[in-house]
């Protein structure tokens, strides 16, 4: 019997060797086989692309393999998209990692997070685009001001990042203006401070015991409201900038105040006690039906969110973007909440180093930056999605569903043209007004104008305040080492547990201190690495470390 096992092992080992020999051959073949001819070919090159939809709601039935807008762009670049991998939002990390592990990377990769792309680029997965940018008029033109910001730590450029948008604030929230009015609030008395907001929630709970004034969902997603008021970012679980340095939220002097506030809200029933286990669908159910007063969104989305209430049959809802009510304390650093003017976005496009059709991939990326593409993804197709009236583009709205090709374009949002440009938001807000009108047949133009006025007032105010702060760099221009990045994810999970328990009162604040201290000791090296890399990142945006 032993001899048989020995035989088996020997046999398997020999097969392993044959197998690995094949791997070597295949691998070296991929490395040398490059298409560098550069000649213009007649037949379109076949291109495989991977992209993420940024969580945009795309209809269930939408076929990513047959995206009209994408096909138009591809045609202009003389390429053919033979495969478009667009994972469901909840699986993008899994699918991206699987793709990388197979080594069979799509020619063009669009992903959410330059850090990941830069790290994989350093390992050889992506093409250094430096010379590509120099040789391409259009890329050069678009990125001439941002070249430094594109560079990875090793000085190479692995990814083009989304172009800046003039209306972009990631951290913002909307409030239900109609609910406030229902509670007797007027424009003059709209809450300005955290205490006033909590008072409004109390009133809401009093009038409608069934209401859930505030909620979030798993991973503390959208739970930032109170944290942000105390100047704590990343849901109290991550590293953040704080007066020019990097700290973990646990080091923030106000973390315990924030946690006590959450606990108080939970105790008083102002916050949904189910927040930790809610999935997206549960969250939505509450948002639509339980008069959730406040919900985090980026500024653009906050501006147009009423349209989503309309499509969920809540015609009375009016959403207005809010201004963070920071607590009055010198230990709050608003710059760690507001992101300032963003030089480039976090959504990136890279070209696989193993691609056999690099030229085609470059052509495609160039086309992605063209004027035509910008029109396509902002407006759609002329005559179908928009019309030109008096030299100005007007969206064609057909009773709520009037999105047509626009829906297809939407899945391409934040490829390289950022979504939240002022023009885009204006256009979407018009559609929102239209949706409100459709959902409320009796509504007067005056009412709409009034809603429009107050929305824009708050929008402009939020934008102005945001732009008065320096650019936040921690999650945009710092790439942690591979190992540290993995440990940081692990750390975030651990911190999440500690924070949630403290929020719910499962552990006392003293116990929190003990656990937080242990945590900080265990992950000190991450804080150190951030601080070590922060000065260089600050340099990119003209800031100075420690200030």
């Amino acid at each position, binding site marked *: 019997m032993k001899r048989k096992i020995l035989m088996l092992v020997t046999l*398997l080992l020999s*097969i*392993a060797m044959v*197998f*690995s020999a094949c*791997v*070597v051959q295949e*691998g070296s073949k991929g490395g040398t086989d490059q298409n560098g001819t550069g000649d213009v070919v007649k037949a379109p090159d076949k291109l495989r692309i991977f992209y993420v939809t940024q969580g945009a709601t795309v209809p269930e039935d939408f076929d990513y393999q047959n995206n009209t807008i994408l096909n138009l762009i591809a045609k202009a670049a003389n390429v053919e998209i033979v495969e478009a991998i667009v994972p469901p939002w909840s699986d993008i*990390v*899994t699918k991206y*990692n699987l793709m*990388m*592990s197979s*080594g069979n*990377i799509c020619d063009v990769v669009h992903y959410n997070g330059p850090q990941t792309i830069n790290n*994989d680029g350093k*390992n*050889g*997965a992506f093409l250094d685009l430096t010379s590509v940018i120099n040789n391409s008029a259009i890329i050069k033109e678009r990125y001439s001001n941002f070249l430094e910001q594109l560079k990875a730590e090793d000085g190479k450029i692995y990814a083009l990042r989304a172009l800046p948008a003039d209306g972009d604030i990631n951290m913002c929230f909307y409030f239900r203006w109609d609910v406030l009015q229902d509670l007797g609030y007027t424009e003059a008395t709209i809450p300005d401070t955290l205490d006033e907001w909590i008072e409004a929630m109390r009133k809401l709970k009093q009038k409608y015991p069934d209401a*859930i004034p505030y909620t979030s969902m*798993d*991973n503390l997603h959208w739970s930032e409201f109170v944290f942000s008021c105390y100047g704590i970012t990343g849901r109290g679980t991550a590293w953040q900038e704080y007066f020019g340095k990097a700290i973990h939220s646990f080091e923030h002097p106000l973390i315990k105040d924030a946690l006590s506030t959450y606990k108080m809200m939970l105790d008083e029933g102002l916050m*949904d*006690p*189910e927040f*930790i*286990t809610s999935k997206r669908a*549960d969250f939505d*159910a*509450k948002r639509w039906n339980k008069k959730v007063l406040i919900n985090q969104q980026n500024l653009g989305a906050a501006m147009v969110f009423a349209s989503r209430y309309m499509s969920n049959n809540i015609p009375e809802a009016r959403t207005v973007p809010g201004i963070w009510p920071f607590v009055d304390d010198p230990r709050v650093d608003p710059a760690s909440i507001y992101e300032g003017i963003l030089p480039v976005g976090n959504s990136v496009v890279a070209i696989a180093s193993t691609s056999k059709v690099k030229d085609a991939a470059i052509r495609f990326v160039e086309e992605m930056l063209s004027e035509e593409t910008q029109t396509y993804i902002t407006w759609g197709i002329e005559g179908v999605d928009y019309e030109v009236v008096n030299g100005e583009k007007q969206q064609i709205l057909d009773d709520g569903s009037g999105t047509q090709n626009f829906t297809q374009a939407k899945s391409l949002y934040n490829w390289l043209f950022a979504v939240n440009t002022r023009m885009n938001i204006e256009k979407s807000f018009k559609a929102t007004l239209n949706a409100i009108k459709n959902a409320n047949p009796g509504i007067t133009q005056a009412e709409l104008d009034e809603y429009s006025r107050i929305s824009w007032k708050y929008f402009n105010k939020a934008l102005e305040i945001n732009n008065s702060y320096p650019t936040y760099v921690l999650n945009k221009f710092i790439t942690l080492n*591979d190992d540290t990045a*993995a*440990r940081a*994810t*692990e750390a975030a*999970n651990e911190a*999440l*547990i500690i924070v*949630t*328990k403290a929020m719910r009162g*499962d552990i006392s604040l003293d116990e929190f201190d003990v656990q937080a201290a242990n945590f900080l000791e265990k992950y000190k090296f991450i804080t150190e690495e951030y601080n070590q890399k922060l000065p260089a990142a600050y340099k990119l945006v003209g800031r100075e470390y420690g200030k």
Partner: protein
Amino acid sequence: MARKNDILIELNEKRGFKKSRDLPIYMLLLPGMLLLFVFHYIPLFGVAIAFQNFIPFKGVLGSQWVGLKNFEYFLKDQNFWRVMKNTLEINLLEIVFGFPFPIIFALLLNELWSSKFKKTVQTISYLPHFISWVIAAGIFRSILSPSSGIINVFLKNVLGMQPIHFLSIAGYFRPILIIAGIWKGFGMNAVYYLAALSSIDAQLYEAAKIDGAGKWRQTWHITLPGLKNITIVLLVLQVGSLVTIGFERIFLLYNPLVYEVGDVISTYTYRLGIEQVRFSLTSAIGLTQSVVNFILVYSTNRLAKAVAGWSLW
């Protein structure tokens, strides 16, 4: 008996390779063995990444070899020992509470007078087995929800109690896990015992009745001994799978707040691999688990053979 006959014939069987006899057999074996070779044995060489600092893009051959570093890492990691402890504890709870339930169910079912009712109950008891964990977990999540779940609505409206956060309080998580396991599996598990019960010779009961033995004594002296063998076998097998536990049930029900009591090896390695991209570490843990599992299964299998004369292979 046929067995004895077989052994005699086997002794006469010609050893060594015999073309006319063996070739057709090899033809039958070929497709299955080929499939196993391709889909099991070839990937098996991938465990090599357990000894590497595997960087996905560089592949198995391009990554750096680090010896036993990954094993050292997880053996020192307190998270690993936590999930190890959870895995063992949940399995033990399963044995203490989940294991006897089908036996009790089978015994009671067997006592029903109406055979029609008996059959109906039995058929219904199989139902959860046919439902996937995705569905079952969805159902459990829905009925246990603190705000909209029917159990909490009942607690609140009828008993005037505060809602209980079943799935996010560590104390409730394991009981729910065990109950979900019983709910889904007891009907099918009872099949073994019902079969054993039906194979008990009815004359034994008749004889006992004539001797004046009551129902309890009959159960004690005839029924339970009749279940002894199958019980031992199943118990031993369950002990054999102490370090493995169904992935889906936990993966679909847990959340960070109950990691402390509910995170097990399979869910932990899934998160390590997919969320943190630490493939080497995942692989090292997986390999260790396989080895421990194999040793356990092998020894319990021998035990079952010795005690009850039954073995898996």
